[in-house]
């Protein structure tokens, strides 16, 4: 397939670079992944990694406030950034004439972001509106990504709310910003990815020109976020002022996404066997046959797979009628997991899952923005961007017994159960 040949190199300042030429369409994607996410933010500063992501758009030495957006969009391009558990990414997708501009914009803020008290105050307000919109003012806000981790995990990095507490966001100051940037936004702690309509040699020259003199700083030590698995079933209830129906989230620990990739992929296949399509196990049992729930979903990772290092979370979520008790839902889930643990799924069940995964990966890679970001995050997390193109084969190689073993690993005596109770709902 076009775009599968990768060029990788590292600049003297430590910046890792991935180039993925693909001439199919005259557009190009540029992304920078920094190896810091909300699991690394300091105690007392919840939400800081995400707030800092906003500040990286607020201007740099060569760019006034608003200039970044205007330069991308007046080049016909789009942009965004997002904060994940273990990394923060920034990207532009543009008609390929804008390639050098995108490199310039990313280099300028990697070298010298202009962080002012005024912009900090402005973006604290914007982030608070974002949290009101996505969490506080809607039903099931933060379900399960904010609500489940404090039940499943005990340590601050894994358990805390990555969107942040309003009072902690409001207390962020310029020194916090400077310290966070100097610690985590070093070129040696970042990956630059360029994919699409590009010439490799010319792009190398442009990268040297724009990123070559970003001063080297040492990459920070990366702590392990490991913690013991729960020794029982941990439970908690959240009262949702807007929700009309009760909901349930079950959280389990999973194999290490990096060190135990094959085990992780078996969990990915298991999630699909459980809830992907009308013929899947939990859709059949919980939604169609009994029926106990309105919707059910199983997933690897709180934001999807390949977003985090260890520990990562396997979730099963369901919204159900108030007439159904949570115990009935739990018992049915446990029963289906037990069946899979005892008897491996059929070859046809796996063939269906794998074909849908292959198709899904094709569709994801067809969108240049997704492909660029996937290459960057796999370089960052796995040191191997080419793994993006091998996932299809690796998933195809998952055996029925491996899926059975994954089901066995989701134990009732080592998990978190979060219950969302409606507080009356909308009138």
């Amino acid at each position: 397939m076009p775009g599968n040949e990768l060029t990788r190199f590292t600049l003297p300042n430590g910046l890792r670079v991935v180039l993925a030429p693909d001439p199919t369409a005259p557009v190009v994607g540029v992304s920078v992944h920094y190896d810091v996410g909300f699991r690394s933010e300091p105690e007392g500063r919840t939400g800081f990694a995400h707030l800092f992501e906003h500040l990286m758009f607020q201007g740099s030495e060569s760019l006034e406030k608003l200039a970044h957006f205007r330069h991308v969009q007046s080049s016909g391009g789009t942009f965004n950034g997002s904060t994940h558990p273990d990394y923060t990414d920034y990207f532009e997708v543009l008609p390929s004439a804008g390639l050098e501009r995108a490199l310039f914009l990313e280099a300028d803020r990697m070298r010298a972001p202009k962080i002012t008290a005024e912009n900090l105050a402005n973006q604290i307000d914007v982030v608070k509106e974002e949290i009101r919109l996505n969490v506080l003012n809607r039903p099931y806000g933060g379900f399960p990504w904010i609500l489940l981790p404090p039940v499943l995990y005990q340590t601050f990095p894994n358990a805390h709310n990555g969107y942040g507490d309003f009072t902690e966001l409001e207390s962020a100051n310029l020194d916090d910003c400077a310290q966070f940037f100097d610690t985590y936004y070093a070129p040696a702690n970042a990956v630059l990815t360029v994919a699409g309509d590009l010439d490799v040699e010319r792009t190398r020259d442009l990268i040297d020109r724009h990123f070559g003199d970003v001063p080297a700083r040492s990459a920070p030590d990366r702590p392990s976020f490991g913690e013991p698995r729960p020794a029982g079933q941990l439970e908690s209830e959240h009262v949702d002022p807007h929700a009309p129906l009760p909901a349930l989230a079950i959280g389990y620990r999973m194999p290490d996404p990096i060190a135990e990739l094959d085990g992780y992929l078996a969990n990915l296949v298991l999630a699909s066997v459980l809830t992907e399509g009308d013929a899947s196990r939990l859709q059949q049992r919980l939604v169609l046959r009994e029926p106990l729930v309105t919707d059910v979903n199983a997933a690897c990772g709180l934001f999807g797979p390949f977003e985090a290092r260890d520990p990562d979370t396997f979730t099963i979520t369901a919204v159900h009628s108030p007439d159904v008790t949570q115990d009935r839902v739990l018992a049915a889930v446990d029963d289906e997991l037990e069946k899979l643990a005892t008897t491996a799924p059929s070859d046809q069940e796996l063939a269906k899952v794998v074909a849908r995964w292959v198709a899904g990966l094709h569709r994801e890679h067809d969108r240049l923005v997704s492909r660029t970001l996937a290459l960057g995050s796999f370089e960052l997390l796995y040191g191997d961007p080419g793994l993006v193109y091998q996932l299809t084969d690796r998933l195809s190689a998952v055996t029925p017994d491996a899926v059975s073993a994954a089901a066995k690993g989701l134990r009732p005596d080592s998990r978190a159960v979060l219950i969302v109770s409606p507080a009356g709902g909308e009138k």
Partner: protein
Amino acid sequence: MTFRTAAEIGRTEKGPRPLPELGDQRSATGLTSVDTVLDNGLRVIAVHQPTVPMAEVRLRIPFAGTDRRHSAIAEVLAATILTGTQRRDRVAMDTDLALVGGELGAGVDPERLAMGGNALASGLDTLLDVLADALTGAAYRDEEVEGERARLVERIAVARSQPSVIAREALQRHRYGDHPFTRETPEAADVATVTADEVRAMHRESVLPRGSVLVFVGDIAPDTVIAKIGAALAGWSSDKSAVELPDLPDVVGGDVLFVPRPGAVQSQLRLSAQAIRRTDPRYPALQLANLTYGGFFSSRLVENIREDKGYTYHARSSLEFTVRGATLLVDADTASEVTAPALLEMRYELGRLGAVPPTAEEVDTVRQYAIGSLLISTASQTGLASQLAALAPLGLGTDWLVEHPDRLAQVTAEQIAEAAREFFSPTRFTGVVVGDGAQLPALRSLGGVVE
């Protein structure tokens, strides 16, 4: 370890650097496509875009109805059309699709029944077969209708607890009263009484090829696909045409309606005004005027109420198209305490767009953005399929897409200024604000807000 200050971080010895010029832009390669009408009246557009070995399908069936129960029956029909046929039960539908990496879904709104999906290109025949099977042989078994009906009642309750849905329903009623276009979410009580017989009857009467459009995009040969579709859908026929939505009245400017939502921590602001269709010669100018107002990040509205004042995370203006018309929509969600000032700024920017027309720099930015973002969105199979599915019901197709960058390039600054004056005058707009009245004492003092 010692750290620099924020001020030290923001400057280097070399100082600010100049922005690089844009390089040369290669144009997109041409599209190979076929656009034809089958004997049964179905329009089919097939486009060869082999970026990945997939095929995307979109079907749009005009599906309007004036009966009070129409939206409830239509919603159950959309939820059950893919749950089994004479030949396949629900599990077989899903299994056949899954084995070729495929998926199909259905949804309905007051204008159209929409079906869409995809499969590995090697599984095109299966995808077509399952789609044709549903269109010509959907069984609507009693147990599937009853099960989906019960789930819909719960999903409707969840939908109506979303502030965005509450605001949309209020805006629709405020703009269009009781027109069928307002019935986007049916009443749970109506859905609860829909019978399988009613759904089967609606399928016979309304799931019709004449007037509908089917779009295929992917690693496919258009001529072959057309022939296959003709064969697969040979049994789908009727002399009648699919039913288009009755004409909508023009949106008339007027007071903004306040809709109470006690306990809300944020308010929904929604403004709307009458606009014009894509085929109108003034459309490209309106598109660029809208971008300048609030249609993208570097717009006056976003730079004002988000980046300057911090009133909102998300503010936007956009064009909403129906087959025979279009409207402008402006929306933002803001904290209660800044709701009144945000509405004031939205109105101020509406007036300013006419009074202080887009500058040369603004015109250049919105033009490049409109051309570039179209190029980006049509570079993927899913993007191209969705664009065509939106254009096709308006009688447009790939030609319109291919020619549109040139249309945008030709628009003059004066035409954009004229569109700004004509369409963005504040008095042309009406709208709704949803929020907690107790926290919004300043709202009424703005004027033009009623309860």
